[in-house]
């Protein structure tokens, strides 16, 4: 399952890095959802 979530984490990170470093324009919803997805993945890694 970690492998699956890693793929989703890469997608969310790509979006966030594109917005932060390259100034790509995204809606607030997209940014919030990407951040929340990352938070959920981190939570999955820590929770048992």
């Amino acid at each position, binding site marked *: 399952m970690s492998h699956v979530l890693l793929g989703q984490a890469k*997608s969310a990170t790509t979006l966030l890095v594109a917005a932060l470093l390259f100034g790509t324009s995204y809606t607030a919803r997209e940014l919030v959802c990407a951040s929340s997805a990352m938070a959920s993945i981190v939570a999955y890694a820590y929770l048992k």
Partner: protein
Amino acid sequence: MCLLDGVGGRGATHCRIIQSLQLNPIAWYQTAKLAVTPIVVAIEYGLDGVVPSAMRAACLVLVCLFVVKMRGEPAAGGAPQSAAGLICVAIWVPLAAAYKVQFGRLRRKLGKCSTLALMHALFPYALVVQTALSPFVDPPGLFDYEWTTSAVFSVAASGLGAFLVNYSGFLVVSHLGQ
């Protein structure tokens, strides 16, 4: 090209069976990946009786919901372009799920091992399957390319890049829980 990507280790399930933009828009591929998660949970339950805790299950649901919303309009408009594209997705999703499940089982079987050892244990099998599939999913085929120096360099660089991408992924996964 698909063959060398297999050398890089994406494995049979990551063969470009649905990533071919001739069959599916990239947004549809990204959206279809979400279907892998519940199938992995179902297979792990069916084969090994593994049930994620309530907290982890909630996290998985949240990840799927947030990723769907993160896609926004492109995901909604990223439907397959043809029946062939839909069929490829239908074939790919369970294959991808099976690959992920086998990945986890192999990792549990090996126990604590290095990242390269994990790759060494998994990729030979993935490579065989991917090599067998390549002529069917990645026409025109290996021998139809014009193998100029520039093309060979590009393919080799692509293979190296794919290997490094997989190495970094395995590095992360080997430090995470199942």
